[in-house]
């Protein structure tokens, strides 16, 4: 097919390894993992006062053993759905602006779509739970797990898994799995989560994991942010 002499640069091994190296470099340049982690950490910490000082809704069901009531805060029904959608808009905008400034595009559409779907699903589940409260408050029973699975923490964990896929970032996968473990395994030290000092413990632990992750990724990705010549 070709009459040109083969050049060392056109050697199949070298061409393929060069292509792989370039693809890896582009992926590294597209990454800004610290930003979504920082946004989610900020939302988690901000949810603590919102949860404490915003209004509550009480929903009760009559059972043979007596009435069972569950309190839902505005944080569950109002704050999180709005905050998650705004977070995805902020993250997508940040990625687009940053990548345009660097001269390399980024695929934010799958992340934004997944984010909106997760936020909508969370809102639907929160509303359904409000209308059909769990029968037992214990954190270890099946319904307690269902409640945690439908929590904002799980929504953030799922969003991180989508980011793992979008960024093809193995380190973030480790963090996302650790974070989901913190969300799904209740940290109560044997106490009821509703007791005042322990009430905010899940949010504090989840926010801390996200914040430490944001700091770690910011430090790890800092050398890659070389100044433009």
């Amino acid at each position: 097919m070709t009459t040109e002499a083969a050049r060392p640069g056109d050697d199949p091994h070298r061409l393929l390894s060069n292509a792989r190296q370039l693809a890896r470099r582009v992926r590294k340049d597209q990454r800004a993992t610290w930003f979504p982690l920082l946004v989610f950490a900020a939302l988690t910490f901000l949810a603590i006062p919102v949860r404490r000082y915003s209004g509550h809704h009480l929903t009760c069901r009559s059972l043979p053993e007596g009435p069972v009531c569950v309190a839902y805060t505005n944080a569950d029904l109002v704050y999180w759905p709005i905050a998650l959608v705004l977070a995805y808009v902020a993250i997508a905008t940040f990625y687009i602006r940053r990548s345009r400034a660097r001269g390399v595009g980024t695929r934010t559409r799958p992340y934004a779509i997944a984010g909106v779907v997760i936020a909508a699903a969370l809102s639907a589940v929160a509303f359904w739970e409000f209308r059909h409260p769990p029968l037992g408050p214990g954190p270890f029973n099946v319904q307690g797990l269902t409640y945690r699975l439908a929590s904002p923490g799980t929504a953030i964990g799922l969003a991180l898994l989508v980011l793992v896929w979008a960024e093809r970032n193995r380190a973030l996968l480790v963090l996302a799995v650790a974070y989901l473990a913190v969300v799904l395994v209740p940290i109560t030290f044997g106490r009821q989560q509703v007791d005042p000092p322990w009430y905010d413990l899940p949010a504090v632990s989840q926010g801390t994991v996200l914040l430490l992750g944001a700091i770690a990724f910011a430090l790890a990705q800092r050398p890659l942010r070389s100044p433009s010549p």
Partner: protein
Amino acid sequence: MTGHPANGLDDTVHQRVRLGILTITHEAGQVEFGYLRSNLEVTAGNLSQHLGVLEGAGLVTIEKGYAGRRARTWISLTKAGHTALANEIAQLKLLISQVETTEQGSGPAAAGDG
């Protein structure tokens, strides 16, 4: 066309800089001229020539615009560009695997019984 994978290689794509352009653009979706130049370590003139070849073959589209006052040139892959890159990578892998199979097949004979 014979069955040898080298015959499936496209001259337009089978070149270090042009394959690099296609790889980076495929990964990024859209890429700026300066990013390509610095990552491929070529001069602006050389890169323009290679982009001209790829654009002429209908593998990339070149869009000029402004970011503030700064002129910027953005490169994207066409559908044919994505296909050409996938074909090239597949052919390269096939070529390498055939060479390795041949080397393994002739290896013990060449090595003798030690």
